[in-house]
């Protein structure tokens, strides 16, 4: 009996190994067949196995792996990225770039997995402590030579978020500004004026509500736009002390500073004054944006990346041609000038420290940041402002909205830097983005909210 068992087990083991052998053989064949259908959008996926572990020398076939947070390769920023990749492969026929793209949450989870093993050569990163602190500490990113980039016309201060101890670990892709988009025609028809102060804004809310229109469409369901709004207010209150106050709060895990309390109260006042739509605290990005683009809301608080609304054919013409912007109005007693705006450099790219083809990876990175690539294509596709000087690409045929945004940025006297939700550890980000709705709608008190976010970063 016992012998029989052993022989059965051995036979099973043999069968399994044989199956495994057949399976991977099949896999290779099916994969290459599949690769030809899937390859057009996402680069070629069928060569990954063959290049693993090959040493790379000049002129040899090189495979670069790019891990991107832009899964949609046919629109917006994803299209810009893919266009540059395709151009690079045409100019360098010996280089194949494989793209793997996941959206934000899945991207961050997989990034953790890659940190342990097999980080792709070029990766998307965020130049914000919530993301980058842990990543830099894990030593997975290669140091870049800052002097190489003096000619790349990066906007002043935009590399700060990517620099640790004087070492540069990545390059920023965009400059994002928090703005109120508003419907100019609706404002003119009703005799509304652009608010000069925060109190004006709240007073305007009553006027707009009186005619049955939502004043500001707010994506409160996601949490981060409210956190940006809060940061924007805090910046208006304290001006250039913003960074110090925020970092002090994180150092002590104590957010009860009077300035922060005031900012939270101003946020609450906005909700109390019915500045946002009904149910703003659970509605998502698309819903909020749609309120504005359908003409049901007079304003929309969002980042400068949405300037492409002006050219979006899905939006009715009399609305899309009348979209204009203004930035957060001054808060009474606030230290910020009207030209001080909430802006930051979020996403960007970096190179893996353990890449076997690091030289080529850096070469590709530099190629993307050539002034006529990411910046220019981004500008032409209306995906927002790059972190580089875009002055050379103004064609004169920009939409009014684009010109206005660029004017705001050019006229700015100082920028806020990273919004508060991205300034701390990732647990803090998660906590503030899920707690901020409750403080704005009055479910939690301001003090409770401040202590909740304080404990989350201990």
């Amino acid at each position, binding site marked *: 009996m016992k012998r029989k068992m052993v022989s059965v087990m051995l036979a099973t083991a043999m069968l399994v190994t044989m199956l495994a052998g057949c*399976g991977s053989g099949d896999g290779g064949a099916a994969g290459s067949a599949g690769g030809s*259908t*899937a390859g057009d959008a996402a680069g070629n*996926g069928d060569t990954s196995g063959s290049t693993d572990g090959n040493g790379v020398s000049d002129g040899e076939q090189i495979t670069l792996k790019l891990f991107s947070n*832009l*899964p949609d390769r046919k629109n917006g920023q994803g299209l810009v990225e893919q266009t540059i990749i395709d151009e690079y492969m045409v100019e360098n026929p010996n280089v194949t770039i494989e793209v793997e793209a996941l959206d934000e949450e899945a991207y961050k989870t997989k990034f953790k*997995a890659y940190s*342990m093993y097999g980080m792709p050569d070029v990766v998307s990163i965020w130049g914000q402590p919530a993301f980058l602190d842990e990543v830099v500490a894990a030593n997975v990113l290669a140091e870049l030579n800052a002097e190489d980039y003096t000619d790349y016309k990066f906007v002043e201060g935009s590399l700060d978020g990517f620099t640790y101890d004087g070492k540069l670990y990545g390059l920023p892709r965009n400059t994002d500004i928090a703005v109120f988009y508003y419907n100019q025609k609706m404002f003119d028809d009703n005799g509304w004026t652009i608010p000069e102060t925060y109190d004006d804004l709240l007073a305007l809310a009553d006027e707009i509500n009186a005619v049955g229109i939502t004043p500001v469409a707010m994506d409160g369901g996601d949490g981060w736009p409210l956190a940006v709004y809060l940061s924007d207010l805090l910046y208006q209150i304290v001006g250039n002390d913003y960074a110090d106050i925020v970092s002090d709060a994180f150092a002590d895990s104590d957010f009860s500073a009077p300035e922060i309390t005031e900012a939270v109260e101003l946020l609450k006042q906005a909700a109390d004054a019915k500045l946002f739509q009904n149910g703003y605290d659970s509605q998502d990005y698309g819903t909020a944006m*749609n309120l504005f683009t359908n003409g049901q809301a007079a304003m929309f608080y969002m980042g400068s990346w949405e300037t492409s609304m002006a050219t979006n054919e899905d939006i009715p013409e009399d609305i899309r041609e009348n979209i204009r912007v203004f930035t957060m109005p001054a808060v009474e007693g606030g230290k910020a000038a009207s030209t001080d705006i909430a802006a930051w450099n979020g996403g960007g790219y970096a190179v893996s420290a353990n890449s076997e083809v690091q030289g080529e990876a850096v070469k590709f990175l530099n190629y993307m940041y050539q002034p006529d690539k990411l910046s220019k294509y981004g500008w032409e596709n209306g995906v927002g402002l790059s972190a580089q000087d875009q002055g050379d690409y103004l064609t004169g045929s920009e939409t009014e909205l684009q010109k206005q945004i660029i004017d705001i940025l050019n006229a700015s006297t100082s920028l806020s830097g990273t919004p508060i939700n991205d300034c701390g550890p990732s647990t803090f980000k998660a906590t503030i983005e899920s707690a901020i709705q409750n403080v704005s709608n009055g479910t939690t008190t301001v003090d409770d909210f401040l202590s909740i976010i304080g404990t989350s970063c201990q």
Partner: protein
Amino acid sequence: MEQAEKKKSGMTKGILWIVLLMVAVIQIFPLVWLVDFSLASSNELFTSGLLIIPKTIQWGNYVKAFVDGHFLLYLKNSILINGLAVILVVIISIMAAFACYRMRWKLSGFVKMLLLMGLMIPIHATLLPNYKIYSMLGLTDTIWALLLPYVAFSLPQALFLMTSFMESIPVELEEAAVMDGCGIYRIIFQIITPMLKSSIATVAIMTFLNNWNEFMMASTYLNSPKWKTLPFSVLEFTGQYSSNYAVQFAVMALTAAPAVLVYILLNKHITKGVAMGAVKG
């Protein structure tokens, strides 16, 4: 008297029908809603009404789903991986159930416990350790990277269902088979397996439905499009800030279709399987 009873039973039947109809409507409505929204344009989605009547029916959403979403490749992968997972789970769970419940050996109780303990392990806790193991073994981005965890995580539940069902099969049957000179594998595959039909259907459908929509493991263990499964198709239309919802609805409708089909095909057996397993267990 008899007539009154008949009347009464007629009335209860009526009430029962109404209740069941309501339940059916509630169950089916999401599917109707899904198909309805998949035929509208992205801008029409944001209405206050429950359903929308699209101005023009947007078949283009489905075309986009097929072409840009690589639907056919992902469908092939999904069917292959899920099919293999179902077959493996069924075979292994029958054999394991037989070994743990019908064969007497020293560690049978322990092994049974060990396998059932798998029910308590949350998938997310295993994500990163498994990733490390797979990459050291060179399994990432192969079909095994999905097949192994899909089978492993479905097995405890399958074993649980199989054993409770197997206990209802009289031992005398096996004794008779042994008397007639049946070997152990013949007992399992020719005597026991045919009698487990409805629990096999239950296990098959549960394994299939659980793994059909699985995304977390697939996104972690796969890099290239080679073995990506259907949930990735939705992702192709996810923008950085906002997404093409209408096409995503189309992809989801297409993704749901095979699962619904499988359910309809096996439906007859699943209710029987669950009920019988429950009573006899």
